[in-house]
């Protein structure tokens, strides 16, 4: 046997050939350790179990729907390849799946946990949908049933709204990015609310709605977002982040038109009725006031009032008359007194009391004139008169105490 000397390169090449030809496709179960994500986008890790370990590489562009972590049990699918520069071999992975659970499910759970922690699902940040949106944005596929259902429902319920439709990729590698762009475009168009979604499909079909890209786009949106992904039973990350989750595209359209055209028309009927009643009752009130003012009752009240016044007047007149009568009496009394007084002063008054008047030479003889014998006198009494001759004169018998002469 010839001693055949090989170079390192040749040997490595031979090993490489053997390994790569022998193991073009392997499925390997193991625990991830020493996981590293290189700046270039390539990912390196070691897959190990109790007895051995093997290097693994996941080239950039090979997407794994979840983030690998040390300690994770995974199943890799790939081929063996040799790296001559370092003299080692590795599994060139095409895909990595979590062992046990579905990888997409794991990715879903991971992202959900992460976003929940970041506050993406907080109920406080959920916005209410406008009750009568003017512009409704729709981001979905132009060919699916979803757009048809949405447009029919919107038309049926509130044709007054303008629908802005942004045809959108909803599955495939570029879907997530396109959905995010669509949301931004619809928002900048001035939509009051945006419906984003698609019809039902497998978890892979719906996957774009489970990506961080779409979650971020919904989270960033400044207008309310209604998500409608798949059927009732399909729940995606987008549904959690959206302001409202609709079970179906039709339900989403209904949520965006809480008030239908018929509702508005009915409301208008009601409005007309109520305002008419309100105004009528106000006018009725005014009319009542006027009618009341003019009513017999009021007139009666007015005449009653009059009566009262009249009564007061009569009363006053009565009092006045009484007063007048009283003063008249007084007056009469005074007159009587005066009359008596005057009567007392009558020159013939004293005759009443038995006195007599003496006349001499045709006139009443004053008290201060003297009598002389031989005077012819005439004596006047109350009921008779006589003539007399003076025979003698004497000194006065009666003297008036107060009359000093």
């Amino acid at each position, binding site marked *: 046997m010839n001693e055949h000397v090989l170079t390192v390169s040749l040997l490595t090449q031979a090993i490489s050939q053997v390994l790569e030809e022998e193991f073009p496709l392997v499925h390997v179960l193991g625990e991830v350790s020493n996981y590293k994500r290189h700046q270039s986008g390539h990912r390196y890790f070691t897959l190990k179990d109790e007895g051995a370990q093997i290097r693994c590489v996941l080239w950039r562009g090979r997407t794994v729907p979840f983030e690998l972590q040390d300690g994770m049990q995974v199943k890799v699918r790939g081929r063996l390849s040799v790296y001559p520069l370092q003299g080692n071999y590795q599994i060139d992975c095409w895909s990595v799946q979590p062992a046990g659970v579905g990888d997409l499910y794991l990715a879903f759970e991971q992202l959900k946990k992460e976003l929940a922690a970041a506050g993406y699902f907080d109920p406080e940040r959920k916005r209410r949908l406008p*009750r*009568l949106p*003017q*512009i409704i944005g729709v981001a*979905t*596929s*132009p*060919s*699916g*049933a*979803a757009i048809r*259902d949405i*447009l029919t429902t*919107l*038309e049926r319920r509130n*044709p*007054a*709204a*303008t*629908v*802005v*439709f*942004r*045809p*959108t*990729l*909803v*599955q*495939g590698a570029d879907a997530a990015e*396109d959905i995010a*762009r*669509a949301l931004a*475009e*619809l928002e900048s*168009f001035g939509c009051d609310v945006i419906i984003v979604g*698609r*019809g*039902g*499909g497998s978890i892979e079909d719906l996957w774009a709605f489970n990506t961080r890209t779409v979650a971020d786009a919904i989270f960033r949106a400044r207008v309310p977002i209604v998500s409608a992904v798949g*059927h009732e039973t399909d729940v995606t990350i987008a549904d959690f982040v959206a302001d409202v989750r609709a*079970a*179906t*595209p*039709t*339900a989403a359209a209904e949520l965006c038109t809480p008030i239908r*055209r018929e509702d*508005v*028309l009915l409301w*208008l009927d009601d*409005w*007309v009725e*109520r*305002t008419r009643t*309100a*105004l009528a*009752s*106000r*006018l009725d*009130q*005014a009319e009542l006031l006027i009618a009341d003012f003019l009513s017999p009752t009021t007139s009666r009240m007015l005449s009653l009032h009059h009566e009262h016044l009249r009564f007061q007047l009569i009363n006053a007149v009565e009092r006045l008359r009484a007063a007048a009568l009283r003063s008249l009496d007084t007056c009469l009394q005074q007159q009587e007194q005066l009359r008596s007084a005057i009567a007392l002063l009558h020159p013939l008054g004293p005759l009443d009391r038995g006195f007599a008047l003496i006349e001499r030479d045709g006139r009443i003889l004053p008290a201060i004139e003297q009598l002389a014998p031989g005077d012819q006198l005439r004596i006047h009494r109350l009921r008779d008169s006589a003539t007399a001759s003076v025979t003698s004169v004497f000194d006065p018998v009666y003297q008036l105490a107060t009359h000093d002469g």
Partner: protein
Amino acid sequence: MAKKTPTIDEQLRRLEEIRQQLEAADRPIEELVALYEEGMAIAKRLREQLASIRQRIITIGGQVEQDDSVPPSAD
């Protein structure tokens, strides 16, 4: 989009305001009548607007190479 004419929602809100003021009836009758007339005009316009309206669909941007080709959603 510039909002030159009041939106349906704005008009409905105005009508609601008018109704409340009419029902409160704490203004002079002249004002109430004026409010009523304003409201009736709005209501009439709205009714016509709603009766004649057709859905407007605007399609913007986006290039689509793929569709989600699914049967009509079951709802």
